[in-house]
C-alpha cells in the first residue's frame, strides 16, 4: 500500500507534517513509532480522511478514544458492519477471540475501559477494511486484553498500521517499522535493520521505556 504527499501545517503551533512517500507492507503489522506530538496520530487522520494520496480501497482508524454507539455490544457490531457494508464470515470467532461473546447483550456504554477497547478493536476488525489503523489500542488495558488483541492481529491476514507508545511490545509484534520525528519519517525498515544501535533515535526511545 502506497501513501504519498501527506502534508499538513498548523499555523498556530508551527507544526508541519510532511511525508512525501510511505509504503506499508501488505498483510503485515506496520508500526509507527515516535515521541508525543511527533505527528503519528495526525498522519493516521490524514490517511483516513483522504487528505493524502494513496491506493488503499478501504480503511478504518480506531481512535485513542473510540466512539461507542448507543445500545448493546451486538448493536455496535451490527452498526459497524452495516456502515462498512461488509459481512465477515468468522464474526463469532473474532468475538470469541476477544472474549466478547458473553457480553453481546450488555449495554456497550456500561462496559469497563478494557472491554470497551476490545469492542472498538473488534469493530475495526469486523469492518473488514483493507487497512486497519490503530491509534494507541493498548492504552489503559490489562495484559490479558492486550494479549487477546495481539493474538488476533497475528492470526488475521490483514494490513495493520499500529501507533503505540509501547516500544517493546511493538518490537515484539511488529513486522515493519517507521519512526516519525517532528512530522517527518526519519527511519524505516524491518525489525533486523530498524532496531540497531546506529539508529540513535530508535535506541533513545527504547531506553526511555
Amino acid at each position, binding site marked *: 500500500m502506497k501513501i504519498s504527499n501527506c502534508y499538513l501545517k498548523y499555523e498556530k503551533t508551527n507544526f508541519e507534517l510532511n511525508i512525501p512517500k510511505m509504503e506499508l507492507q501488505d498483510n503485515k503489522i506496520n508500526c509507527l513509532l515516535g515521541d508525543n506530538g511527533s505527528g503519528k496520530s495526525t498522519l493516521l487522520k490524514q490517511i483516513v*480522511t483522504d487528505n493524502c494520496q494513496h491506493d488503499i480501497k478501504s480503511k478504518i*482508524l480506531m*481512535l485513542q478514544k*473510540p*466512539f461507542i454507539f*448507543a445500545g448493546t455490544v451486538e448493536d455496535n457490531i451490527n452498526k459497524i458492519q452495516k*456502515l*462498512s457494508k461488509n459481512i465477515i464470515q468468522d464474526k463469532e470467532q473474532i468475538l470469541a477471540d476477544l472474549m466478547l461473546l458473553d457480553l453481546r447483550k450488555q*449495554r456497550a456504554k*456500561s462496559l469497563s475501559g478494557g472491554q470497551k477497547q476490545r469492542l472498538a478493536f473488534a469493530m475495526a476488525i469486523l469492518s473488514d477494511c483493507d487497512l486497519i489503523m490503530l491509534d494507541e489500542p493498548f492504552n489503559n488495558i490489562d495484559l490479558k486484553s492486550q494479549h487477546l488483541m495481539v493474538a488476533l492481529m497475528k492470526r488475521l491476514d490483514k494490513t495493520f498500521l499500529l501507533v503505540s507508545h509501547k516500544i517493546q511490545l511493538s518490537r515484539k509484534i511488529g513486522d515493519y517499522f517507521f519512526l516519525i520525528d517532528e512530522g517527518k519519517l526519519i527511519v524505516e525498515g524491518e525489525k533486523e535493520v530498524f532496531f540497531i544501535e546506529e539508529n540513535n533515535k530508535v535506541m533513545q526511545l527504547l531506553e526511555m521505556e
Partner: protein
Amino acid sequence: MIEVIKLTLLVNISATLLGMLFGLLLGYQLYFMKSKIKYLLIYLTKTMMGLPPVVLGLVLFMLLKTNGAFGFLHILYQPISLVVAQTLLIIPIVSGNVYQLLVSKGEVLFFTLDMFKLNFINKIKYSLFEFRNDLIFILILGFSRAVSEVGSVMVVGGNIKDHTRIMTTALANLKSQGNYNEALIYGVILLLIAFIVQFGLSLLNKEEDNHENF
C-alpha cells in the same frame, strides 16, 4: 377551566415541537458553520437563552400590532400568537444546547462516520439517533420553558377569557383578584402537567438510569 387547560396544552406542546424543530436546525447549522460570524451567532444564541419572556412579548407585540412590520398577519391577541411567542423563547434554548451537545460529543461520531463516507443527511440521522437521550432532555428543557412562562403570552395574547387565556396567565389574573384557592388549583395542575410530560419523555430515555462506565 377545562378550556384553559386544553388551550394551555395545545399552545405548550405546539410551541415545544416547533421550537425543537427550528432549534435543532439552528443548532446543527451553528455547529457545521464555517463562516466568520459563527462565534458571534453562538454568543447571540447563548444570550437569547436567557431572554426575559416579557421583553420578547413586548418586541413581538410591536411587530404584530396593526401598524407593525407583521401587522398584516392579524394574529395579535389570537391563540397563534401565544405559540409564536413561546416558540421564539424555546428556539435559543434548544439550539444552544444542541450546539453544545455536538461540540462535546459530536466530533468523534462525525469523524467515525466520515470514515464510511456517509453523506450529510445520513450523518445527521445517525447523530439524531445516537444522541436521542440528550435530545429528549433538551425537549424537556424546551417544554419547561413553555409551561413556566407568563410574560410573553400575557403581552401578545392579552389573557382574553375563552380565547387566549392559558393557565399561567389565568393564575396571574386570579392572584390579582385575590382568588388564591383557584389560583393554587391552577398551580397544582400546571405542576402535574409538567410532571406527566417530564415522566413520559423520560420513559423514552431507556438508558438514563444505566450510567456510563468511565
